[in-house]
């Protein structure tokens, strides 16, 4: 038996994480593209017409994955914010910073596709019910996080202030998730749950889950690309960036 000799903490340094991220991006991006193609094929060519909703239900293949990602990315962002506050590592704050725009994008898409699904099924694009309102608050939390970072010039101070905001806002995520249980909402209850049998046909569920994985890999690829840009932006005056530039020039 061999013991792993990789020192994983090495990758907590931006200088060594930068090339690692660069090597990982093509794998995640390619996986995301393939999975999205499979999910679209399942969603439009294989899955049958829904008995009650007709073809309108096909919005589910992006609405549910987008809504999941909007909440999940926020939790991952809050995790990196907590790491950044407690361990005071630069890379943790950069990861949080890199995730926020992608999280905001999926929150917007969850709201947009939800509105376009709500109109034909409920007769309205929007209602101030608990699920939709708390998801809208999530969008404002992402915007608030990014605006606060932007407003503070000193990056380390921006790290700390925005991390506190992100952690306080994390309380909104369980509110979104459980809103359909806690309140009588126009939005329907959970479609997929770990405790009960799925309320949808297997092929529809499969298409949705494959799309969720596509969204997951897409988010990782985007966050890694963005964190590489952030690393260069914030570390451009350091020796390792200069050394790398010199090696490249030779």
């Amino acid at each position: 038996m061999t013991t792993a000799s990789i020192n994983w903490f090495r990758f907590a340094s931006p200088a060594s994480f930068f090339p690692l991220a660069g090597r990982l991006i093509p794998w995640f991006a390619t996986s995301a593209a393939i999975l999205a193609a499979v999910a679209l094929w399942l969603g439009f060519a294989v899955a049958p017409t829904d008995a009650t909703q007709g073809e309108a239900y096909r919005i589910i293949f992006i609405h549910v994955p987008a809504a999941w990602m909007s909440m999940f990315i926020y939790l991952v962002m809050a995790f990196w914010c907590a790491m950044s506050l407690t361990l005071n590592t630069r890379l943790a704050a950069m990861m949080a910073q890199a995730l926020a725009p992608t999280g905001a994008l999926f929150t917007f898409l969850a709201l947009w596709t939800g509105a376009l699904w709500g109109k034909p099924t409920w007769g309205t694009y929007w209602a101030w019910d608990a699920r939709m309102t708390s998801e809208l608050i999530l969008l404002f939390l992402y915007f608030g996080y990014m605006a606060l970072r932007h407003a503070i010039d000193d990056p380390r101070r921006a790290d700390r202030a925005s991390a506190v905001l992100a952690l306080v806002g994390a309380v909104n995520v369980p509110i979104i998730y459980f809103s359909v249980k806690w309140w009588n909402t126009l939005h329907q209850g959970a479609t997929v749950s770990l405790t009960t049998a799925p309320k949808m046909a297997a092929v529809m569920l499969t298409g949705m889950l494959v799309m969720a994985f596509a969204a997951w890999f897409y988010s990782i690829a985007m966050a890694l690309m963005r964190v590489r840009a952030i690393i260069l932006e914030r570390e451009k005056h350091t020796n390792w960036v200069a050394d790398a530039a010199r090696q490249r020039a030779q």
Partner: protein
Amino acid sequence: MSLGDFLSMGGYGFYVWGSYLMTGLALAVEIIAVRSRLKAAREQSGDATR
């Protein structure tokens, strides 16, 4: 099923394609924005790293 049937989505074409088109558009904008940010950061740091 003809192309016209597929595009009409049983009368729900506006809602279904409105969702998928916005998703595609939003992802395309993000990909372009991130790539250009990385490119700008590379040029700023002296085209340092791969």
